[in-house]
């Protein structure tokens, strides 16, 4: 059986299995509610737009964003370093399968972004249907270029073609925006790998799988996950001089893990930034309610992190009981989420929040306590 088809079949099974868990999970409610609220707020925002809105800048920004942040799947496994090695020279079908698989992903990503950006464009710019189609196709191609460039190990081609397309757009030739990504695709075809760069593709697969697992872990217990680490010497040194020094072992270890893990402090900042953006878009319409939504979303992702952190734990044989570890993790999570809620509450006041800011804060606290109580 073709190796790619077999791996693809396993991937589909995984996606179907986890989709069922996710769809049935009670925690999905927060996500639904946020999406509905976001759509409503965006609609309000669109209604207030006029032709002075800088849509060209937004589309150009979308062009620049689309080739970035891709985590291509290669469906390789560590054992392939041994067992796939003899077949490496004769496995072009696998490589083409992987390329096609990733092209589909890239297209979906671009189309989703364009679904959000296009209404802006058609409401504020005088463009023909052909030009709109060209912009959509350019977005799709730029996304494909970004993803394939990672697979083929070709650097900078994504940013170069995106910059050129954005430049052409500013010059008022939307139809010509297609040219740079098309040329980039030709270049990628010329520079394509003839053999699987096994180690590079393994690293890509691990990073991509970790991202998939991270999303699934919001809904299902999925303890075996890789941890992305950032040293953050400034924050850690400051904490070492004050808080961490006095803490017990469990709070010490979770404090450091939370500060350094890509899934905790970064997550809080990322979601807080999105929350501020939503507040701005909402134009002051019940802006305080954005706070519990985004604090809830953060809690939804932070709470399952404990099980993952606890599964890779030398603490199992140290004199730290599970109850102490749990208490320490809750201690940190509660404080971080409350700080996020207070920060967002203050920002909501700046955007015109009144009584809704207070109600939002109370709701946010309730949601945090609810999610923390689920952690047992």
């Amino acid at each position, binding site marked *: 059986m073709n190796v790619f088809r077999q791996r693809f079949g396993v991937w589909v099974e995984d996606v179907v299995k986890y989709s069922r868990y996710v769809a049935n999970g009670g925690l999905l409610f927060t996500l639904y509610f946020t999406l509905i609220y976001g759509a409503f707020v965006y609609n309000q925002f669109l209604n207030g737009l006029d032709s002075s809105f800088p849509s060209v800048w937004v589309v150009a920004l979308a062009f620049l964003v689309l080739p970035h942040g891709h985590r291509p799947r290669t469906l390789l496994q560590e054992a392939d370093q041994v067992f796939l090695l003899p077949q490496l020279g004769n496995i072009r079908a696998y490589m083409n399968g992987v390329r096609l698989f990733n092209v589909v992903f890239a297209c979906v990503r671009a189309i989703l972004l364009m679904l959000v950006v296009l209404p802006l464009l058609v409401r504020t710019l005088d463009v023909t249907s052909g030009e709109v189609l060209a912009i959509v196709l350019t977005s799709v191609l730029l996304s494909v270029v970004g993803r394939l460039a990672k697979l083929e190990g070709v650097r900078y081609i994504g940013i170069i073609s995106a910059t050129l397309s954005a430049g052409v757009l500013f010059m008022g030739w939307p139809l010509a925006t297609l040219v740079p990504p098309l040329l980039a695709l030709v270049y990628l075809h010329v520079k394509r790998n003839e053999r699987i760069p096994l180690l590079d593709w393994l690293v890509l697969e691990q990073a991509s799988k970790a991202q998939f697992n991270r999303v699934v872990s919001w809904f299902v217990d999925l303890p075996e996950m890789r941890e992305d680490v950032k040293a953050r010497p400034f924050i850690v040194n400051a904490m070492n001089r004050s808080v961490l020094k006095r803490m017990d072992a469990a709070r010490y*270890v979770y404090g450091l893990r939370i500060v350094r893990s890509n899934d905790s402090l970064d997550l809080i900042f990322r979601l807080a930034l999105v929350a501020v953006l939503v507040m701005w878009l909402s134009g002051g319409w019940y802006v305080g309610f954005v706070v519990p939504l985004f604090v809830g979303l953060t809690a939804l992702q932070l709470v399952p992190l404990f099980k993952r952190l606890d599964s890779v734990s030398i603490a199992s*044989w140290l004199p730290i009981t599970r109850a102490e570890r749990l208490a320490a993790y809750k201690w940190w999570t509660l404080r971080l989420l409350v700080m996020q809620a207070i920060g967002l509450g203050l920002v909501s006041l700046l955007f015109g929040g009144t009584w809704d800011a207070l109600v939002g804060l109370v709701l946010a606290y309730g949601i945090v306590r609810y999610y923390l109580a689920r952690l047992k």
Partner: protein
Amino acid sequence: MLHVDKLNGGYIGKQVLHDISFEVKKGELVGLIGLNGAGKSTTIKHILGLLDPLSGTVTVDGETLTSSENNYRKKISYIPETPILYETLTLREHLTLMGKSYGLTDEQLEERTMRLAKDMRMEKQLGWFPSVFSKGMRQKAMILCALVTKTPLLIVDEPFVGLDPLAIRQLLRLFDEYKEDSAILMSTHILETAERHCDRFVFLHQGVVIATGTAIELRQAYGLDTHASLDDIYVEAIEAEERKR
């Protein structure tokens, strides 16, 4: 220091250990010797309290896991066969965690950290994250974390895997130093090294203790001459056990 008394245990639905009894006294380095699947790691997991026994008791310096979990755990440090480190903590922070867990003062921790790191040639790596450690460095990091605690009982599971010859020699020297005030139980396959450094041996076979004693006692027990190595004694013990069955 360590008393294992009529321990029966294993995993859910699979009993691995059958009436295991042995002890490790203060000042002793005892080798836990057995084939793959003999029950060495299961025995260690029971002593660490990671598995619940079906029956029997494990006592460390007078404490059992049921009498006080924290007091019991504070008496044991452990070097696992496969290093397990937090990817988000530097080596020094791991040592600080050990210090906090085992109630060391800052001065004790600093003094032991510097001495052990120098002995294991890991001074430069104190500020590094485990993600950049080689396999041997990870193992050395686990060794540092365990030795810094100075607990009454040190349990070591296959400590030599991944270590270079210099590090093995240094580790054995540190074990000699460590056992002056403590007891060490070491599971290993490297019988030549075990023969030279262990004071006594516990032979495990299919979840049963088939022999215990010093090398001299075991040679006498199996009627072997004084030149018989631990390898010879071990093979003879296994064959004698299988003949009995």
